[in-house]
């Protein structure tokens, strides 16, 4: 234990004083996040634009039967959205619940046209079924609310220009009220777009955190042995009366601690961003809805699956990085090599965002749950869908992969080969000396 403590203190001290590694550690996730975020924004913008020329079917309960409700339906048809009219709110709910192909439904309440004619604020209710917490599914869900928002905005402008201005009307105008329908409950929100935006963020959040954590840990543990070589301390260390296992453990522990500190910083930043920014943008009200939507999604089984998977992922990445550290000679190549681990992982995680397990068969979902590291991105959604088999398989498979990796790594470490191998590599100059003769 003493060795572990000494190594740990020394590691932390050097790391804090040597900004080189820490800076690289911060830059990599920033770059990754920026790329991912940029791609996300581009994708969401694209689907928002598509929403304006979209095809699809929506259910409409026109309680108003006025000229302005007809205007709304005409506008929808003009853009290419077919409308099915239903005769009650119950029928509307049932229709959109049972028909996955529908974009959602709207209710135009009594008095809608009258309100508009007398330049009073008016509301349209937009119902959306949240079937999956997945970027693709969520952006599809955002189409109808976006469309109705646009139509409402145009209508407001038209009324303002035709009828002259009522101050209240300009402020409130024709508003759409979003209602998100989860499995067994409905969440009323003023701003469906903000809510869906937040859910998209949540679906990115977990994989992003995993990515950042693995990039921290991979870098730190891959560099920590390279540091000893660069500082020309490895030989001295190996001759000291200390346990080699504790030496490695101390280094790993230091990596994990710093990795988690980084994770908390980043996680806090994101959590703040995801909750504060959307709710601030929509006047505070939807912040509450986002939280209640989240509590709907994240239950105990999701949380425990998540924690177990995270442990598996951390161990997996650690052992992988240590295996790779065998082949590195200095800090810079260690950082490059950890990039080789993290970059494909980042790409895989990004692609996985666009896979919607909700629309898949059970066997494909099981296959998804067995993909190491990437599968952790599906946990929230599997919990949401209620696929408890996959929810269990994800942490189990991650822990198994980690065990396998650790076994391989420990086989190499315990033979002391890990040290001598590297020592040989570093001493390339001896070969030159030998040839001289």
């Amino acid at each position, binding site marked *: 234990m003493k060795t572990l403590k000494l190594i740990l203190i020394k590691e932390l001290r050097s790391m804090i004083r040597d900004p080189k590694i820490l800076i690289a550690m911060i830059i990599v996730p920033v770059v990754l996040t920026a790329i991912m975020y940029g791609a996300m924004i581009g994708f969401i913008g694209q689907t928002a634009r598509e929403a304006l020329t979209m095809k699809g079917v929506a259910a409409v309960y026109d309680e108003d039967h006025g000229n302005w409700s007809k205007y709304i339906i005409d506008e929808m048809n003009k853009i290419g959205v077919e409308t099915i009219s239903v005769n009650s709110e119950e029928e509307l709910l049932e229709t959109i619940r049972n028909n996955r192909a529908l974009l959602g439904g709207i209710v135009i309440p009594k008095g809608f046209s009258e309100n508009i004619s007398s330049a009073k604020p008016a509301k349209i209710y937009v119902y959306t079924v949240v079937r999956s917490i997945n970027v693709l599914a969520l952006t599809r869900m955002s189409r109808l609310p976006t469309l109705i928002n646009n139509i409402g905005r145009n209508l407001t402008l038209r009324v303002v220009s035709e009828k002259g201005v009522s101050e209240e009307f300009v402020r409130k105008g024709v508003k759409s009220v979003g209602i998100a329908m989860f499995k067994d409950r409905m969440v009323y929100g003023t701003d469906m777009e903000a809510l869906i935006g937040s859910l998209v963020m949540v679906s990115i959040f977990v994989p992003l955190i995993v990515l950042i954590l693995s990039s921290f840990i991979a870098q730190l543990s891959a560099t920590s042995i390279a540091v000893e070589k660069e500082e020309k301390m490895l030989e001295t260390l*190996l*001759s000291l*009366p200390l346990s080699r296992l504790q030496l490695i453990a101390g280094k790993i522990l230091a990596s994990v601690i710093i990795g988690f500190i980084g994770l908390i910083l980043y996680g806090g930043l994101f959590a703040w961003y995801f909750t504060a920014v959307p709710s601030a943008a929509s006047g505070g009200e939807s912040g509450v809805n986002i939280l209640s939507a989240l509590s709907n999604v994240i239950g105990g089984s999701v949380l425990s699956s998540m924690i177990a998977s995270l442990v598996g992922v951390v161990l997996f990445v650690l052992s992988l990085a240590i295996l790779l550290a065998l082949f590195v000679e200095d800090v810079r190549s260690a950082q490059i090599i950890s990039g080789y681990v993290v970059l494909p992982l980042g790409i895989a995680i990004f692609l996985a965002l666009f896979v919607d397990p909700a629309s898949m068969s059970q066997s494909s979902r099981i296959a998804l749950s067995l993909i190491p590291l990437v599968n952790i991105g599906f946990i929230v959604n599997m919990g949401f869908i209620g696929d408890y088999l996959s929810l269990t398989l994800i942490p189990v498979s991650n822990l198994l992969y980690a065990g396998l990796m650790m076994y391989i790594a420990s086989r190499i470490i315990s033979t002391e080969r890990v040290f001598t191998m590297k020592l040989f590599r570093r001493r390339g100059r001896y*070969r030159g000396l030998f040839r001289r003769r």
Partner: protein
Amino acid sequence: MSSGEVIRVIDLEKVYPRGVHALKGLNFTVKRGEIYGLIGPNGAGKTTTLRIIATVLQPTRGDAYVEGYSVSRDPDMVRRRIAYLPEDAGAYKYLTGIEFLEFIASFYTDDRERMHRMISEAIRISDLGDRIKDKIKTYSKGMLRRLLIAKTLMVHPPVALLDEPTSGLDVINATRIRRIIKKYAREYGTTILLSSHNMLEVEYLCDRVGIIHEGRIIAEGEPRKLMEEYNAENLEEVFAKIVGGEK
């Protein structure tokens, strides 16, 4: 093995991974309190020998013993009895000299008192004065080497392994270090195994030397006796005569 023999090297062979046969059956012993010098040209196998005794490398064949413990079978016991100064050692750049000394000392003792004594001794040996509180990053090559010699000797190991202890030091510093090494061997009965290129250094320091060439000891004995035996002015000449005569 007689109790006087602290280091015993028996038929030591080392073949490096790419087939370099660095040691081809090395034999020598070092007695308690003795200063033993390994001398020889570049690539002779000095560093390889010291690394094996320091438990950094493992022997391919043969074995080495420190106070009776085998480096291949009992490396932990060996490590507790040695302090090793590698040829091109460094130190943690971002620690201060004193933090570095504390780091090393804590592996040898838990006792605060003893640790304190070790460190004040190291400060004296290194002669770094107030600079000991600066980051090692700011040290010159000579200062670093002095710090490393100090960290090796401060723990009062039964056996000190010094690979070219004075390399990189100017004449004044080198002389000081030689005097300290000698003093340590006498005062604390530390057994010292060192390697060197500098024949004058060896003549001054060592009770006995082993001339190593192409992985074998080709001559061994007290410097003066060797010179007499080969009718030479100095060890350099001894070496030239042996290597030349063999051809």
